[in-house]
């Protein structure tokens, strides 16, 4: 079987032969239409992108019709729309094929480097911004700062700190040896003065395979001689960011490639753990050869704590099974069974396939696919054989096109693309879009109502102007009086909002304090219980203390408590809004139904990311063995353990509590901001009419002349015209926004209901 290395080389050669530069991602060169093997019909996230574009253009249109106080709200929303981006993290064990998977998914074989040894040493962000403009920089590499390097290479970074906390005073020999190795290697590769490079940021206009391999790839440092003269900077690179103007995504997406976990090289393993908290969707890559080992499960448990329902499991390397399609199905159902057992409340889509096949299918133009496949795979992929049996001639007649199509279908990539699109529909990004749409709807509605009220009064005003001076004067006085009243009530309303705001803040403060106490109590109980166990236990063969159950309990309590607080807030909102409706209804006659409804968008799930932070107690059994040895008596063991658990988890609790506080405050701020915008809009309207009336009044009292009367007349007419235009526009906005919200809700609901299980690709 030929290796990907060769495939990659032939891909690159083919590109060079076509006279292109070896630059792989150039958007100007390869537009979607020109690619011969582009099977996907819809780009990933197309529906969400459509919504985003519509909202963005609505924001611009709304801008022309709203009053001053609402403008900042619109600007903020527009900024959020521009920055909206779905982050997809690709994680899994070392050598599961994560980089190769990304290459197949983004349809750029050979983009990210791969090797028989763990290759990805640097967290790599691939930004698909979907802007037609070619990015200014195609690749940005940030090197460690001198401090960070000091911490990692001299100190051993987080791992050493954890070890220090578990077994004070001890430096693991293994880590020390590996750090020594890494320092020497950096020196060998970059020269003795490599420290001068630290803290630098390197930008490039083009991405080339050589460049990526210099900065990302761990490199074959075990080879006796170096094969190239190039400097390898991966040891001191902190992050790599690549920018693409072309790609399989419609919506802006950042793909995150990570070094695998369970890497025997401890330093690389640590890099990954730091990146786990930010993605919206996780693609968990498993090897079909050893699916769902203990390391996989413990990582999934961590992810589960982070993102309840945003995990896709991709079983890679099906091509290496004896019977790729048949065994692939067996592995898939075994994995599904195990996942159901481990995570009964989750519905994790499982897709089996082969990144290698995915990459191969894209190279059909350049290589003979048959030469790269095992005979058994050819039979499986060749489809039903009319003559039956393994007829060589029949196989030879399978066309290249048919084969590459079959490879693509069986690679699992189309299924992954569809699943990602579906999940994006309910991701944090979709929730954000829905919030923005709801906010726009509110703005459009309130603008429509206020303008209608103004229009009515203006028309009345115009009518009155045709009457006698005496009557006009009294009418004006009457109107001014009613405006004063309206102003007073509105200002009172504003004060009420301030009180509500204060009440909300108090509620959050007491709620989070209770949360802090509850979580503290759970940790306290757990540490006592574990200490008891150590005291009572005669079994010295305990390998380690498992704190996963504690994480589970903390997460449960955290989510329950936050849910309670959220529903308290909702309850107050539910009580508040009808009252407001009455008040506003008094101020403005004919306010329609649906105006000032409590926000319907559900509270976004609170992330329990801090719970996935590695603590000293998570260290492996060899470390625990040291711990057991370091504490001779049971009492010492128990005391140390109790203190260790409390010390390790107290900071996590603090983080959880402050996260809850931030999220809930955000929600309350949003509500208060909306309400204030409405009231401010009302006050602006009142102000405007007061100015008009004052002008009219001064005309009547003889300060003005004929010209100013005509001017006023014109101003009135202009205002009436503007108001009727705004009314008409807002009606359209409301219609479109209602439609958009419906679309978003439908796509979110699709993700919620269990999906029919997908069959293995190609069967």
């Amino acid at each position, binding site marked *: *079987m*030929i*290796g*990907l*290395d*060769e495939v990659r080389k032939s891909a690159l050669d083919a590109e060079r032969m076509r006279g292109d530069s070896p630059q792989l991602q150039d958007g100007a060169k390869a537009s979607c239409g020109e690619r011969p093997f582009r099977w996907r019909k819809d780009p990933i996230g197309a529906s969400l992108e459509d919504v985003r574009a519509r909202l963005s253009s609505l924001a611009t249109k709304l801008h022309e019709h709203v009053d001053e106080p609402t403008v900042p709200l619109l600007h903020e929303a527009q900024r959020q729309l521009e920055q909206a981006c779905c982050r997809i993290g690709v994680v899994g*064990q*070392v*050598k*599961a094929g994560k980089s190769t998977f990304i290459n197949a998914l983004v349809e750029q074989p050979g983009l990210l480097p791969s*090797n*028989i*040894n763990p290759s990805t040493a640097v967290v790599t962000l691939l930004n698909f911004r979907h802007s037609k403009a070619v990015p200014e920089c195609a690749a940005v590499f940030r090197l460690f700062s001198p401090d960070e390097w000091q911490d990692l290479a001299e100190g051993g970074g987080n791992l050493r700190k954890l070890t220090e906390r578990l077994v004070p005073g001890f430096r693991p020999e293994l880590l020390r040896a590996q750090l020594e190795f890494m320092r020497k290697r950096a020196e060998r590769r970059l020269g003795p003065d490599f420290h001068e490079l630290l803290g630098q940021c390197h930008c490039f206009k083009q991405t080339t395979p050589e460049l990526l391999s210099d900065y990302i790839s761990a490199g*074959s440092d*075990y*080879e*006796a001689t170096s094969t190239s003269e190039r400097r390898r900077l991966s040891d001191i690179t902190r992050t790599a960011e690549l920018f693409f103007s072309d790609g399989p995504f419609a919506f802006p997406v950042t793909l995150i490639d990570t070094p695998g976990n*369970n*890497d*025997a*090289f*401890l330093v690389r*393993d640590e890099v990954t753990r730091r990146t786990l908290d930010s993605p919206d969707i996780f693609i968990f890559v498993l*090897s079909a*050869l*050893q699916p*769902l*080992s*203990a*390391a996989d*499960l413990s990582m999934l448990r961590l992810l589960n704590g982070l993102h309840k329902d945003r995990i896709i499991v991709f079983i890679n*390397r099906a091509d*290496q*099974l*004896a*019977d790729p399609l048949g*065994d692939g199905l*067996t592995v898939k159902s075994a994995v599904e069974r195990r996942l159901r057992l481990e995570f009964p409340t989750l519905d994790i889509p499982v897709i089996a396939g082969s990144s290698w096949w995915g990459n191969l299918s894209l190279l059909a133009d350049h290589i003979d696919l048959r030469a790269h496949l095992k005979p058994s795979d050819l039979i499986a992929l060749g489809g039903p054989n009319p003559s039956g049996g393994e007829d060589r001639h029949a196989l030879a007649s399978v066309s290249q096109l048919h084969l590459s199509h079959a490879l693509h279908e069986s690679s699992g990539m189309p299924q992954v693309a569809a699943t990602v699109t579906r999940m994006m529909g309910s991701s944090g990004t979709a929730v954000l879009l829905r919030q923005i749409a709801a906010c726009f709807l509110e703005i459009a509605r309130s603008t429509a109502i206020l303008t209608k009220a103004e229009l009515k009064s203006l028309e009345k005003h115009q009518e009155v102007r045709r009457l006698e001076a005496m009557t006009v004067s009294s009418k004006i006085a009457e109107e001014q009086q009613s405006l004063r009243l309206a102003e007073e009530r509105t200002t009172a309303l504003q004060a009420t909002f301030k009180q509500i705001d204060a009440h909300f803040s108090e509620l959050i403060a007491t709620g989070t304090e209770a949360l802090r106490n509850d979580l503290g109590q759970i940790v306290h109980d757990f540490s006592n219980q574990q200490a008891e166990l150590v005291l009572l236990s005669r079994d*010295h*063969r305990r*390998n380690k203390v498992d704190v996963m159950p504690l994480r589970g309990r903390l997460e449960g309590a955290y989510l329950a408590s936050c849910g309670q607080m959220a529903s308290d807030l909702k309850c107050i909102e539910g009580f508040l809004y009808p009252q407001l409706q009455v008040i506003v209804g008094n101020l403005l006659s004919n306010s329609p139904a649906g105006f000032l409804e409590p926000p319907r968008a559900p509270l976004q799930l609170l992330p329990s990311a801090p719970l996935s932070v590695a603590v000293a107690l998570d260290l*492996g*059994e*060899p470390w625990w*063995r040291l711990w*057991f040895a370091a504490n001779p008596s049971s009492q010492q063991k128990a005391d140390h353990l109790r203190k260790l658990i409390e010390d390790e988890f107290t900071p996590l609790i603090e983080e959880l509590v402050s996260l809850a506080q931030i999220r809930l405050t955000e929600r309350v701020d949003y509500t208060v901001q909306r309400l204030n915008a409405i009231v401010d809009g009302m006050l602006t309207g009142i102000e405007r009419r007061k100015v008009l009336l004052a002008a009219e009044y001064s005309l009547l009292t003889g300060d003005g002349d004929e010209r100013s009367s005509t001017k006023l007349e014109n101003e009135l007419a202009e205002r009436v015209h503007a108001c009727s235009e705004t009314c008409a526009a807002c009606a359209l906005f409301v219609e479109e926004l209602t439609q958009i919200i419906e679309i978003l809700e439908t796509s979110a609901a699709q993700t919620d209901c269990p999906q029919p299980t997908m069959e293995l690709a190609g069967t």
Partner: protein
Amino acid sequence: MAVRSPEPARRGSPPCIAVAGEARSGKSSLINVLLGSSVLPTGFNDHIPLPVLVSYASRLSLSLELSNGRRVPTDWLATGLTATHNTRRLRLGLPIDLLETCRLVEAAGFATGCDDLDRRALGICRRAHSVVWCTPAVQAWKASERDAWLMLPKRLRERSILAVTYKDAIPSERDAEQLSARLRAEAGPYFSKIVMIANNRAAALGGQPDGPNTKHLWQASGGAEICAAVRALIAEARP
């Protein structure tokens, strides 16, 4: 921590060699290679979560050994072949010459997520004379494997083999060199020898073949090397 000494060599009882490694690392087929015959099931669904002790017998026999020592005749397809508190292991008896000089035990259970199974496997390796640790070439020597190996007594390190299985999945000769260079650096200090083997191919050859053509294949698969290495371990154990 209580470390048990190697199982006392009863009179006439040959040294025990454990074949260990994480799930699907090629343990069963490696044993088949050593035995020169495909006796252990290696199919995709044939995973048996129980230790298997292979020792000499005048004729083929397979029994399930219970915790109380009682043995119940069984077959590979029998249901209930799982690790519970009252099953200890499977015993396979075979009339094969190699087994007159050693006993082989397949230690199933590392990183299975099942504590009981993992503990049993650790126990088997602790009591064994030496260990052949199987690690699949495409995902070789992960942290979890190293951690498990470091839990075992140090004395095993100088008389154990790291078998890099599924050698045929390595794409090129150059990749093979790079891989073995890394393994020499990362795992070398913990083993007396590192051997690469295309276990499935070697098993399919059914032991040391005679023909010149198959002899070449046998050499290329790594079957010859692993058999020689294991024989050397046995020779060391028997004064």
